C-alpha cells in the first residue's frame, strides 16, 4: 500500500475473478494436462524418475528459452538461436577432433563454443541496434549464416565417437545422487542443475537489477526509455549478446547429451523457445515475458512430449497438438485482455 490519495474516480478495473482466469488460465491448463497424464499413465508418469527425466529432456530448450526471454522482454526476437546452438556444438566438436578427442581439449572446445556464441550474439546485436535492421530480418539472416557456417565447420558430417572427449560426454550422463532405484543410483541430472542455474541468473538479471528494469522499459516504449536516459542501443546490443551465449550453452548441452555434434541438431529449438516464451506471456497481466512464465511454458512442452510419448501417440500428432495448445493459450488470454 502507498500513501497516495485514492480517489472515488471510477477507473475501470476488471474484477478479480476475470483477472485470475486471465493470468492463470495457462497454469490451470498445465495442471489439467498433468492430471490427465497422471490418470492415464498411473504407474510411471507421476514418479520422481520420470520428472527428473523430463527435466533433463527440456534442459537445453529451457536454457535457450530463458535467454530468449531477455530479448523478448524488449519486444525483440532472436531467430538464430537454433542454428547458433548447432554451430556451437559443432565448433566444440571441431576443436575436440583437432585434438583427437583428448581430455585436455575439453575446456578448449567449450570455450571456443562459448566465444562463438558471444560473437554471434554480437553480430545480431550490432545489426539490430547499431545498423537498425528489424530483429526478425536480421536474425533470420544470421540464422542462415550460422547454419551454413556449421555445415562448413563440420564438413556436413556428424562428429562423434572417439573424437568426443570423455569428460564432455559424461557430463550430461552424470548428476547428483538423490536416491537408489534397485541397484542403480537415481541422479539429479547435471543438465537440469545447469538449467536451474541459468534460470536463477536470468531471473535475478531481469527482475532484480536496474539492467532488467531498463530492458522492460525498452519493451514498454523504447522512445520513452531513451528520453528517460536509458542507453537503448547499448542495452539492446548486450541483450543479444546474452541470448547468443545462452544459445551456445544450450548447444553444448545438447552435444554433450548425444555425445556428438552435427550441423542440424539445434534446428527445432528456436520455435520451441519462442513458443515457451509466448506461453509464459499469457500468464502476465500486461502480456509481457517473464522468465518464470517461460519456465512454465518450457515445462508444458516437455510434459506434453513426455506424456504423449508414453501414451504412444504419433509424434506428428504431438506436433499438431502442441501448436493447437499454443494458439489456444494465446487466444484465451488475448480475448480476456480486451480493453476499453
Amino acid at each position: 500500500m502507498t500513501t497516495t490519495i485514492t480517489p472515488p474516480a471510477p477507473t475501470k478495473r476488471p474484477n478479480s475473478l476475470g483477472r485470475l482466469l486471465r493470468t492463470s488460465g495457462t497454469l490451470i491448463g498445465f495442471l489439467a494436462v498433468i492430471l490427465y497424464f497422471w490418470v492415464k499413465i498411473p504407474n510411471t508418469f507421476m514418479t520422481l524418475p520420470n520428472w527428473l527425466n523430463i527435466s533433463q529432456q527440456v534442459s537445453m530448450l529451457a536454457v535457450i528459452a530463458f535467454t530468449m526471454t531477455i530479448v523478448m522482454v524488449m519486444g525483440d526476437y532472436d531467430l538464430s538461436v537454433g542454428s547458433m546452438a548447432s554451430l556451437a556444438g559443432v565448433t566444440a566438436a571441431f576443436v575436440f577432433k583437432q585434438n583427437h578427442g583428448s581430455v585436455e581439449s575439453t575446456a578448449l572446445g567449450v570455450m571456443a563454443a562459448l566465444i562463438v556464441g558471444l560473437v554471434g550474439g554480437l553480430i545480431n546485436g550490432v545489426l539490430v541496434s547499431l545498423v537498425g535492421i528489424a530483429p526478425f530480418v536480421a536474425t533470420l539472416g544470421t540464422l542462415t549464416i550460422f547454419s551454413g557456417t556449421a555445415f562448413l565447420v563440420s564438413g556436413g558430417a556428424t562428429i562423434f565417437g572417439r573424437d568426443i572427449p570423455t569428460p564432455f560426454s559424461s557430463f550430461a550422463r552424470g548428476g547428483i545422487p538423490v536416491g537408489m532405484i534397485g541397484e542403480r543410483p537415481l541422479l539429479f541430472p547435471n543438465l537440469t542443475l545447469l538449467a536451474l542455474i541459468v534460470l536463477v541468473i536470468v531471473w535475478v538479471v531481469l527482475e532484480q537489477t536496474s539492467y532488467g528494469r531498463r530492458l522492460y522499459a525498452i519493451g514498454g516504449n523504447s522512445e520513452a526509455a531513451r528520453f528517460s536516459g536509458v542507453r537503448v542501443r547499448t542495452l539492446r546490443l548486450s541483450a543479444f549478446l546474452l541470448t547468443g551465449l545462452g544459445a551456445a550453452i544450450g548447444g553444448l548441452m545438447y552435444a554433450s547429451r548425444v555425445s556428438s555434434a552435427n550441423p542440424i541438431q539445434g534446428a527445432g529449438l528456436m520455435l520451441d523457445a519462442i513458443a515457451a516464451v509466448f506461453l509464459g506471456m499469457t500468464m502476465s497481466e500486461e502480456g509481457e515475458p517473464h522468465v518464470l512464465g517461460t519456465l512454465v511454458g518450457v515445462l508444458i512442452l516437455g510434459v506434453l512430449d513426455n506424456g504423449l510419448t508414453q501414451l504412444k501417440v504419433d509424434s506428428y500428432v504431438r506436433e499438431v497438438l502442441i501448436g493447437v495448445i499454443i494458439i489456444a493459450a494465446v487466444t484465451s488470454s488475448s480475448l480476456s485482455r480486451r480493453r476499453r
Partner: protein
Amino acid sequence: MIQPLLSLRGTSKSYAGSPALIDAALDLLPGEVHGLMGENGAGKSTLIKILAGIVAPDSAQIMVRGQTVSIHSPSDSFAAGLRFIHQELAVVPSLSAAENIFLGRPTPRRAGLLIDWRRLNRDARAALDVLGITHIDPRIGIGQLSIGDQMLVKIAAAFLVTEETPTNAARIIIMDEPTAALTDDESARLFRVICTLRDQGGAVLYVSHRMDEIFDICNRVTVMRDGRVIASLPIQETNTADLIARMTGRQLDALYPPKDPLIDNASVILSANNLTTERVAGITFELRAGEILGIAGLMGAGKSEVLRALVGADRRLSGVMHLDGRRIGRGSLAKSWREGIAYIPEERRAQGLMLSRSIRDNITLPHLGAMSRGGIFVNRARERRAVDHLGQVVRLKSQGAAQIIRELSGGNQQKALFARALAAEGEDAAGGLRVMLLDEPTRGVDIGAKADIYTLLREMAARGIGIALASSDLGELIGVCNRVIVVRAGHQTESLDSANLTQERLLTACYGTNEEHSA
C-alpha cells in the same frame, strides 16, 4: 421551443460500484456548437462512449429528433445519425482521401464489380465541398495530409451522402478534443468547418479543455463534475473564471500562482551560447537559479527542438553549453539525466510513458542507478519510499505505485512525469536536480491538474531549480515565466523580460514583423 436534435435524459453508469455518470441530461439543438467541459474523470468520456455504443449504460433515455433510440453498439449509434471525431484518427494512410471517406461504406462500382473511381472521387469531392473544404484533393494519399486535414477528411466522411445514407439524416457530430494535435492554422480551418456545419443546421458536441476555443466557437456550454451535469448555459452568461469554478467546485482566484521576484545575483545554472543543431540555430540564454524561462514560437518554429538541443536528444553541431559553470561537451540524454537535467518531452504517450508499466517503473527509470545497491540491484524499499514521497509532492491520484500507468487520467500521467523529473532531487540522486526542461507540460491536462502543475513549478523554482518551459499557450507563458525567448523558423529572435510580457508582444514576436508566417 426548438426540438433538440439529440437529447439525453436520466443517463447513469457505474463501474464496479463506483458511479461514473449520475442521471445526466443534455440537449443538443440544431444549429449549435455545444461545449462539454469538465475535469478528467468528470464523466465526459463515459457520456460520449454511451452515445457511441461502446459502453452500455445502466439507464438511459436517448432521443434523436424526439424519437427514442436504443444504442447497443457502434452501428446503432451510426444508424441513429451520430458521428464521432476522436483525437486519434483512424485513417488508412496508404489509401487516398476519397477511399478513406468511403471506408466502411459501400464503394460505388461498375456492373457491381469494378470500382467506379470517377463516382467515388466525385462523391468524395461533393462531401468535402458541402463543408467548404476546397483545398483538399480527394485523390491525394491521406498519409500525405497534415493531421488537421486528415481530420477534415474524416468529418467529410462522417456526413457522406450516398444512396444508402439518406440526406435527411440528423447531422450530429461529437468531437473529443479535436485540436489536441493540431496547429493553430489547422485549428482555425477546423473551426470554419464546424461553423459551416452549424449554419447548415447540424449540431456539434465539442469536448475541449481549452477555454479560448470554447468561447470562440460555442453557443452553449455544459459543465460536468464528478459524474453529474452541473450546468448547461448560453456562452454569453458565463466567463472563464465562472466555468473554472463550476468545473472544480472551488473558486480559483488565479490559475497562476504569483511570481516570486528573481534574485538579482542568482547564480547562472545553465547557459547556452549560439547553440546550433540541424534544426535550430543561435540559441543563446542564461538560466538562473529559481528562474522560469519560457520558449515561445509558432507550431513548427522549433520550440521543442530548442529543448532537444539542450538535453542532448539532437546532436549539437556548434555552440557552447555550461551547467553550473562547467562546460558540457557532446551531450546525451543519459548524461543529462545523470547531471541533474530532467526532461519532460512533448508527446506524453509516445515519448514520455511506458504505458504498460507501473507508476513506479515510470517514475524511477532515469534514477535506477542511484536507487540500486552497487548500481546493480534495485533497492525496492528505497524506490518505494521515493515514489510515495514524490506522489504526494505532485499530488498524484492513483491506486498505488504498482498501478499500471495507462489507467491514469492524462493529468495524472503528466504528474507522474513530473515525479520522474523531481526524483532527481532528494537523497537518491547523485548530483540532485538542477534544471527541468518541460515541453508543453500542460497540454491535454484538465484545469485542476494544470493549477497543481503551476504551483509545483513555482515551488521548484523557489528551491533554486532552473526551469525552461516550451509552450504554445501564451497565457501560460505570461502567467508563469520570468522571461521568454522567442524562436521563429528555428532561430532565436527575441528575448522578452517580465515587464514586456503581454499577449500582443508575444504574438507579434512569434509571427515576426515581416509577414513571414512560417507555421
